[in-house]
Structure formats: C-alpha cells, structure tokens
C-alpha cells in the first residue's frame, strides 16, 4: 500500500512529533516522513516505536526519510 507522505522539513521540536501523532491517527497504516534535523528524526522514531510501529530511516545530505509502518 502507498503510504501518505508528510513533509516536516523546517519544523522544530516538538511540532514534528505532534504532526506525526496526528498523521498516524488519520493514517493508521503508516506514513513516509521527511525531516531536516536530527532531533525531529530521533523524536519521531521514538514516538512511532513506542506506539507500535517499525521505523526505517534513510539519511542523505542532512535530510532524513522515515518510513513508519506496522
């Protein structure tokens, strides 16, 4: 299934975690998330793992793509 994409570049904590929380409520199957700072990447990973999701992260040029799925 194609996961919904969320562009959270340029946002600082705790906004990215909050956006992912809302995003997963609307799309419980998962999300693809784009962030541009390590704190957002780490915090989203924690939130997703704590709420029962798997997170697959790819980093390129200080940008992170997180695939959050069941």
């Amino acid at each position, binding site marked *: 299934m194609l996961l919904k994409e969320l562009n959270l570049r340029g946002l*600082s904590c*705790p*906004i990215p*975690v909050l956006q992912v929380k809302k995003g997963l409520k609307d799309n419980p199957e998962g999300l693809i998330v784009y962030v541009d700072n390590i*704190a957002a990447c*780490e*915090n*989203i990973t924690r*939130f997703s793992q*704590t709420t029962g999701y798997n997170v697959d992260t790819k980093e390129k040029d200080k940008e992170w793509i997180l695939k959050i799925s069941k």
Partner: protein
Amino acid sequence: MEEVKLTSMVKTSGCAAKLPPDKLHSIIDSLPIMKSKKLIQGFETADDALVYSIDDENVCVQTVDFFPPMVDDPYIFGQVAAANALSDIYAMGGKPAVALNLMCFPSCLDLSVMKDILLGGMDKVKEAGAVIAGGHTIEDPIPKYGLCVTSFMKKNCVITNSGAKPDNYIVLTKALGAGIINTAAKVDEASESSKKDVIKSMTTLNKKSMELSLKYKVYASTDVTGFGLIGHLSEVAKASGVSISIDTKKLPILEGALELARFGFLPEGRYSNEIYIKNEVNFQSNISREVIDICYDPQTSGGLLLFMDESDAEKYVSTFNDDCCKIIGKATKKDKKLLYFF
C-alpha cells in the same frame, strides 16, 4: 490587542535556547583571553559567574542570563527567568545584592505582558533579598527576559567549579526532566500535574540550597541549566581534574518526564548536548534510553550540584528534607572518561 501565547512566538525556550556547546566553544575558545590581576575567575573554566577582586578580602561576583519564554503566563516566565539568573550567584556560594533587567519585547504584544514579566522578576529578586536597579529594553520579535546579577562577598567564601576532590559526594537539589516537560507542555502533551511540578521547580530559588550548604564544607558547586546534568557535571570534572561516577537509580526525576521521553517529546538541546560531550561519557549498558535522555535534558532554573564530604552530604540531604534533593554519585580520581553512569 489579540492575546498571543508566549511560547508560540519562540522556536526554543528557557535554557534549551542556549547556543549548542560545540558552536559556542568553537568561538569562545578561539578568542584571546583578557587578563587582569583583579579578575580572579573569568570564562576559562566555564564557571557560573565572574569573580573580580575589590580589595584583599572582598570580591564582586557577577553573572548574566536571559532566554525566551517556556511558559505562557508572563508573570511566571518573569519568575523563572529571574530564579535562573539568580541561581548562578547561589552556585558560587554568594547572596545576590543588585540586579539589572534585560528585556527583549515584541511590538505586537500588549505592554501589560511586559509589566507582568517584570513584576515576576521583581518578586523573585525581592525574595532573594536583592534589589533591581534598572535595566535595558529593546524591541525584538521574540520575547526574552533575564537579569544581570551582582553579589559582594568574602574572597575565601567563593565556591568555584574547580575544587572537587576524589571521594567528594555529589548532591543535586532539584529534580531533572524540566526540558522534556516544557517541550511537551508547548503542544499540550504534558499532564496538569507535571506542568504544575515543573513550574514549582523552575520558580524555586536556589537560596535555600545555598544557605543550607554554608553549614558545611563545599569543595565545588555549580547549577544545572542548559547543558543538562551531564554538561554541567563535565564542567566540574574538567575544571577540577577528577572523574565523576553517577548512580542513575538515585537521580531525582520530575513525574511524567520519563514517559514523555519515551514518546519523543525531547528538546533539540538534548541532542546537541549529547553531540558535544558523548565521547567523554560512559553509560553502563543496562541504562534505559529515557534515563539517558534525562541526563542530557537541558534544564531551566535547575538545582545546585554540591560536592561535599560523605557525612556532610548525608546531613545536608536529611536536613533539606525534600525528595528532589539527593546524593547522586561521587567524584573519583581522574579516569579515562570524565563521567561514568551506572
């Protein structure tokens, strides 16, 4: 005028707004050191305040601290910012005497907000037994407030961060986790009781902590602010030429902070603190990720870290009589790493 949430105007707040330590040190370490025979303590050892000689016996101790709001209530913000600035004087074993306001204020906010911030600051300065003598205000889109504080004391009563000795016991006088709870509170994810606890902690002066310590020999002291427990412990270890061993089971932690850390409500400063110091720190492998978060969490108006003899530390904690004040570890001979957490 429309009511604006103070915390919605800022990107980072409280002591978490400090410039990351790696960036800060890349600049200040490259500056020439200005020497003066009268300047006893400058910024070389990253101490809490400067110490300037007045005569053979007396010194002036001075500090400055200001930051953007971490709470929406302007009066409480004023109290927190003032308690935080005054704390640097307490960390040197001094009593605040005179303070100056530093205020950055947005033109879009009602001026009554500025008045409430200043009243909050004033009340804490009054509680400290000091006086506000003036200040400076500039227009700025992001509100910020703090104080420059001066104390006058006997030279031999100054406590720096460089006197810790192996076998000193370490007392921490406030619970950790304020940065995490403030981060969650910004987006209404912290519980009411956590918010209440963190405000109580941040608005509490380190006055009692310092005054009680006067009964004992304190070898070194500092306060825990933006660089977190780890950052400020490492400054003492480095300045004193010791290593430090911390029992993480003894750490006083604000209720709710560990759970919020598990859900990723961590301030950016938690990560920049880790990037700067991680090579100097050893965590025993069974320590949970959330407890490590607590150790790196930037504190706003945190407690004092006091280095004392074992029996004095025990008496201090028992007299202090508050669950937030605990012996958390001890200093050891200098080892491979500055800090060991078990």
